């Protein structure tokens, strides 16, 4: 009895699964090329330009940037740029405040919406509306609201009984608060949606089992629901953090980064340097630096996720 592995000529050596993978690679090739074009090409371009003195006023197209290469001078300047670091810092502050507030508000709302109650559908629509509004329009809306004799002040006067006439948008500190309020108003619904989906994904049987074992609501939430929602929460936080960092429309409409640079975030700074000061090579450097920062931020989130996945897969294989 021979145990030969001679192949019949022309017969495929690959299993069906392997053939499938090969076909898959060919079929996704167009998309892969497109992604490279959209992503890698501009990316390379930015890096290239950021290493020169080139600007639109030079009179030559961008690929002539090699004529004014300065390697890392732009980056060195970036490190010393107080305005840059200021705007980074302010953006960071906004992100640190806004994201947790949106998270907890969203979570609270999601918990409310798990069970049924009267008029739930109506409340759903109302709750999701802020997200549908164009950010710039939302910015304008809040601009009006936060005027000195505008609705916000009047509302506060009504509630507290005192005559409240705060200066919002022209005050360096209050403007911050106004912007955060606007962002929270607009994006809490997104958190709410994502977290609600996560909550609904908690297996109902396990919750029932916990109830039958005598657990109260808080114990069920803490021990069963929250651990199951870990991945969803990480996703929601990472998405929102990265987006918060890029905050532009609402803020520009409300304060234009003012008063002065009191509310100038990194996006506003980049906008001004690009269109007002026209130092495009410098902007490229800024842009690239911010990209790296956000990638790191997102990377942390993905690492947490990947860790959870890996632990799970390991458990499957070990036995």
């Amino acid at each position, binding site marked *: *009895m021979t145990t030969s592995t001679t192949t019949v000529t022309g*017969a495929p*050596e*690959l299993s*069906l699964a392997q053939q499938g993978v090969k076909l898959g690679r060919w079929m996704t090739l167009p998309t892969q090329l497109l992604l490279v074009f959209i992503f890698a090409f501009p990316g390379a371009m930015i890096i290239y330009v950021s290493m020169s003195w080139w600007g639109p006023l030079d009179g030559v197209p961008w690929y002539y940037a090699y004529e004014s290469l300065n390697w890392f001078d732009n980056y060195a300047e970036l490190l010393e740029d107080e305005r840059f670091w200021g705007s980074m810092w302010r953006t960071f502050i906004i992100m640190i405040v806004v994201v947790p507030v949106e998270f907890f508000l969203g979570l609270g709302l999601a918990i409310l919406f798990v069970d049924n109650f009267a008029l739930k559908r109506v409340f759903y629509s109302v709750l999701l509306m802020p997200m549908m509004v164009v950010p710039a329009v939302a910015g304008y809306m809040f601009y009006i609201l936060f005027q000195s004799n505008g609705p916000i002040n009047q509302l506060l006067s009504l509630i507290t009984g005192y005559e409240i006439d705060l200066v919002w948008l022209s005050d360096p500190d209050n403007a911050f608060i106004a912007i955060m309020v606007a962002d929270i108003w607009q994006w809490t619904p997104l958190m709410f949606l994502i977290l609600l989906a996560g909550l609904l994904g908690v297996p109902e049987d396990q919750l029932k089992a916990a109830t039958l074992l005598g657990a109260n609501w808080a114990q069920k939430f803490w021990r069963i629901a929250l651990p199951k929602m870990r991945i969803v929460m990480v996703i929601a936080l990472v998405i929102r953090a990265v987006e918060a960092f890029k905050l532009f429309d609402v803020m520009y409409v409300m304060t234009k980064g003012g008063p002065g640079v009191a509310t100038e975030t990194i996006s506003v700074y980049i906008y001004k340097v690009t269109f007002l000061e026209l130092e495009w090579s410098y902007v490229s450097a800024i842009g690239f630096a911010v990209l790296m920062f956000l990638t790191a931020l997102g990377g942390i989130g993905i690492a947490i996720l990947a860790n959870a996945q890996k632990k799970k897969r390991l458990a499957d294989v070990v036995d």
Partner: protein
Amino acid sequence: MAQLELHGVSKRYGNIVAVEDIDITVPDNEFFCIFGPPACGKTTLLRLWLGLEMPDSGEIIINGQAMTHQPPAARNLSMVFQNLALFPHMTAGQNLRFPLVERKVPETEIARRVAQVAETLHITGLLNKVPAHLSGGERQRVAIGRSLVRDPAAYLMDEPISALDARLREEMRVELSRLQRELKHTLIYVTHDQEEAMSVADRMCIMDGGRVVQVGTPDEVYNFPETVYVAEFVGSPPINLIDGRYEKGRFTATDPALTVGVPDAKNQPDCDAVIGFRPEDIQVNREVGPGAISANVYELEPLGAYAIVDVQAGERVIRAQIPGQPQFELGEPVHVTPNLDRCHFFESAGGRRFGTGAVAAGG
């Protein structure tokens, strides 16, 4: 003619050995069962025969032709999968027609074969329904029918009725047996239900951890298991096993105390051994008798036609199957007498059977 063979076939997935050194020959027109616990390699064998997997070594021969590396389409085998894989958007009739339409069989022939198969499986009235409107048993028959409309060299089925409830399974296995006889085709059938395997198979093979442990008719496997694994795995309730020692023609156990002679064990060197006797080969009496073991009734399961009586002798629980409806009280002292003719003896190391039948130890 469709003899299916595997010679020296092995398959690994990374570090895991799925099947190793498999040698099976299934002659034409045989109902052959592959039987074993989950993850023993049974499904892998089917996939190797079918061509969904390629072996790492060995030969696959179908109808006398080497098919080791041929793609599934070239092998002319028909498979029923465990999850049925019926097309949900097609009616039962369209599902049945599908394999023939694909192969561009002429329309009159398609109609004829579908009608014939539908009649054999009693699904003629269901042909216009979609799978969602069919019961589990009906869906199963449509899935089997879809593999029958072709005229393949052989049929392969992977646990096709395991998802049905007990009563339907009992009916379907008789139907499948009848069908196989009528169609006169080789059928290779994977299952983990030992009653099912014994009922349908002309011959069966027992698998353990990717290897074939025994091949034979259900009678042979049941009455002459080659290893203790086979003896334990085939037969429900499972065989009773007691550890002891074999020396110079005698087997002795201490828990419970038992001594018998083993005339059948020729040239067997002294060794640690295990005696096995099946639940239906035991008598449970209130009176003492020759060769009886003292015990107390541990549990009684009245199943109507027969009862399973568990008795505790020392630390050991022995299971007996007694016809009718015996009345025992829990804890009642009884005497258990195994039928010595039908005892098996296995080596403790390796599990090989070295003798069957015992005699009362004299003196």
